[in-house]
């Protein structure tokens, strides 16, 4: 009970938020929706990046692909719910397909190929004009979906957090960690590394795919630079690391902190937002390899809550 309270209470409060009758309600919901999106991306990125140690700089490709798949299917007349399901399945199939060649690469080569994939997707989307609308983007029937999107995002956040937690304590999660620590040794002790890596990538692709699909539905309009951007590709990495990559609690904390920092920067300063964000990212990379949640006081807090993990 004590262990679940810090999780259940905020979730319940956030769930009740749409009931508020204040003017700024929609604005608040929109801001939180974007935060939730960031949490989902960071948390699912870290399944492969933190738990398994493969720095997947191309994680955002799953998001963009889900977004486009939904848009295309929906505009082709597929009803919304089946369209989401199909979009997510398509992304999972894509993840399974690329996992074979990509996971022949290690370390920086893997990171780089995955990063290249983002740019490749952007250009391919631009070039496949007839299908995607090219650089003009893709529209679906406009509607205000603020409240349902908020609730869906919140639900996905809860699911991705639970999934991370379950995975980190599961047989699969242990294999993923062993791959992070030493892939050859893992193989020597019976871990079918190929299979595990594919499973991890496919699982991690589900969440950005879902968010991508709903994102198109929510925002009504997407274009290649927006969903396949190089900079947004890298924010989940920064968030995960800021909070504590490889810890279940890390990415979500990092996402919240970095997102808030961004909000502050944008509202408090007129210029040089990018540079300030860059400064924050440099500081994270330089001074906080373990992230916030591995700092002694916060680690102690986790210990008191009973949330501390054995492998950290």
């Amino acid at each position, binding site marked *: 009970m004590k262990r679940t309270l810090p999780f259940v209470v905020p979730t319940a409060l956030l769930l009740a938020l749409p009931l508020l009758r204040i003017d700024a309600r929609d604005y608040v919901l929109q801001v939180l929706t974007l935060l939730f999106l960031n949490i989902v991306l960071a948390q699912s990125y870290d399944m492969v*990046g933190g738990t398994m*140690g*493969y*720095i997947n*700089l191309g994680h955002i490709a799953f998001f963009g692909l889900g977004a486009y798949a939904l848009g295309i299917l929906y505009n082709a007349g597929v009803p919304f719910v089946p369209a989401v399901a199909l979009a997510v399945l398509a992304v999972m199939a894509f993840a399974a397909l690329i996992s074979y*060649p990509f996971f*022949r*690469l290690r*370390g*920086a*080569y893997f*990171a*780089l*190929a995955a*990063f*290249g*994939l983002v*740019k*490749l997707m952007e*250009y*391919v989307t*631009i*070039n496949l004009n007839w299908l995607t609308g*090219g650089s003009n983007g893709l529209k679906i029937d406009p509607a205000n979906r603020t409240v349902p999107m908020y609730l869906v995002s919140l639900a996905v956040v809860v699911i991705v957090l639970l999934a991370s937690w379950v995975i980190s304590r599961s047989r699969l999660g242990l294999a993923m960690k062993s791959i*992070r620590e030493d892939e050859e040794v893992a193989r020597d002790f019976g871990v079918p590394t190929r299979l595990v890596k594919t499973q991890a990538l496919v699982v991690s692709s589900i969440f950005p795919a879902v968010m991508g699909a709903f994102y198109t539905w929510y925002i009504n309009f997407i274009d290649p630079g927006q969903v396949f951007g*190089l*900079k947004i590709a*890298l924010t989940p*990495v*920064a968030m995960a*690391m800021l909070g504590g*990559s490889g810890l279940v609690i890390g990415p979500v904390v990092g996402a919240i902190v970095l997102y808030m920092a961004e909000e502050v920067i944008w509202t408090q300063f007129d*210029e*040089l*937002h*990018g*540079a300030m*964000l*860059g*400064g*924050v*990212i*440099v*500081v*994270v*990379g*330089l001074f906080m*390899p373990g992230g916030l949640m591995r700092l002694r006081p916060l680690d102690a807090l986790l210990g008191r809550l009973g949330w501390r993990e054995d492998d950290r």
Partner: protein
Amino acid sequence: MDLAILVQLLINGILLGGVYAMAAVGLSLIFGVSGVLNLAHGEFLMLSGFFVYVVYDRLGLNPFLAVALVAPCFFVVGYLFEMGLIRPLALRKEHVRLASATLVTLGVALIVEDATSFASLGGSFEKSVDIFVPTLVLGTVFLPSLKLVIFAVVLALIAALFLFLKYTYIGLAVQAVTQNRRGAVLNGVNTFRINAIAFGIGTFMAAAAGGFEVIHSAVAPDIGLPLTLKYLSIIVMGGLGSFAGVALGGVIIGLGEALVGFYNPAWGQTVAYLLLVAILLVRPKGLLGK
């Protein structure tokens, strides 16, 4: 296709590829020695282009002289960049180091881009240098002489780097570290210093490329990251530790962009990434990699 057009495209492609090759060789040197994916590489290129423009514009200097003035300063920039921001990451676990370096270099990239765009007032306008040089005409083929001059300088710089690596003590140490870091340490090489020198030289190469970009085409604040990715594609294509491979990769990309771009400009820019992914799938260690 008309033969003359083909020849023209090949020439354009090779001239384009030369500048790519130079910046990519610089990045390859950095990656080879330090194992760091330097996401700020293209940013230094852009920044140097910006300074070259300013020197040319404000002081009225010959743009080539401006490059000769600006680019060497970037050796110092690269050297200090390594000392201050990359070296502290050295002792981290492999995947943590990779993620840290990604963030640090990305953060620097964001800062440089944003600051340049701020300093150039808005950032959307492009910096370019007009110098009139007559174009040589051979039959039906045009030889853009400005690009030829640049190409010659680029070749000279790559050759100089090659000789440096082959015949100087530091050059040999750089190669030793690229091939086997532990072994180099055991043989008394100061790898920190070598890392810094590699960053210095690599950044210098990028800076020179940036100067040339600004002379023959244009430089805008937001070109950095996409360019970095293109160069990274080239070095992966060429294979780690193989400068010949990287130079080849640069020319392949240049040719590919020129040829494909002739038929379909949109797909022209896609060539690099398509080739990157395709080659990695077939040869995980790159074209000429071992």
